[in-house]
């Protein structure tokens, strides 16, 4: 059963390919999200709010293409696991 942590990790992994690892790690660092080199988050409480904040930051910094790049993969996982999505990903 996927959680919001899994959805956020899906965003991170996908954006390693789109924005590049360095840019993505900078964004995560600015947001105080701790990840390892594989893009896996350290343990913690992750909710729809953290997911929304991350994707909104991607949009603000890089525009629609950065959001498009992760939207389908995250949306599919959310649907399959009965998780609600922030409006930016709907």
């Amino acid at each position, binding site marked *: 059963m996927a959680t919001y942590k899994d959805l956020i990790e899906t965003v991170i992994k996908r954006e*390693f*390919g789109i924005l*590049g690892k360095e840019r993505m790690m900078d964004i995560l660092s600015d947001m105080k999200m701790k990840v390892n080199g594989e893009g896996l988050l350290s343990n913690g409480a992750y909710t729809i709010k953290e997911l929304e904040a991350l994707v909104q930051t991607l949009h603000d910094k890089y525009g629609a293409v950065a959001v*498009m*790049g992760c939207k389908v993969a995250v949306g599919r996982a959310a649907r399959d696991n009965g998780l609600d999505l922030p409006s930016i990903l709907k």
Partner: protein
Amino acid sequence: MKKSDLTKAVEIADGIYWVGFDDPTAGFRCNPYILNDGDETVFFDPGSVPHFPMVLEKTLQVTTLNKIKHVVVTHQDPDLCSAIPRFEELVTGIGGAFDICTHTRASVLIAYYGTISNFYRVDANDWKLTLKSGRTLRFIFAPFLHFPAAFMTYDEKSKILFSGDIFGGLSFDWSLYANEHYAEAMKAWHENYMPSNHILRHTINKLDKFEIDMIAPQHGSIIPKKDVKNYIEILKNCECGEFYFE
């Protein structure tokens, strides 16, 4: 892979060049290619109006306008062919001419850009184009990827697959040749622009009978020979958009 000077045309194989625009702010990159064969030049997906000046500059580094005889257009989208009338103006201005190689279904739409060139309809010409030297370009039908009459081009001599939108990627972290994270960029592209795995797999399976030394997509990065099989397998398993969650 040797780092290329992207301010110039880049030779990716003998007589074959990338002539695109390296825009570091864009996540949506476009890749026009030139193939020179004797005194014939084939232009693949020549690009958009905004990119025309940069593409023209690089084109003139590797050929002359009067040599452009064929413009292969995988479908009608503006990012890959809205500049055709600009090229026509220059080429016809010096007495030259080229044909636009595309599918009949695309040709009726491409005409709305105001093109004046004759169409070479790939579906009416046995899915191939033979150049004056005898070199053959094979066209591989790729229905609904994403245009209903999309196709790819396989150059029998270089064994390069000019794949159009297929094998494309979304990437701000762009490099001319696919980097270690390109699979994610490629999945992102196909999830957004390709309808379903069923449809994608139908066409990708056709590639099994071709010996492919390089894949040159119209978006994203070039896939070298050592990675071709891996990326083909990735696409065979890519879920694509498939009704976008409804």
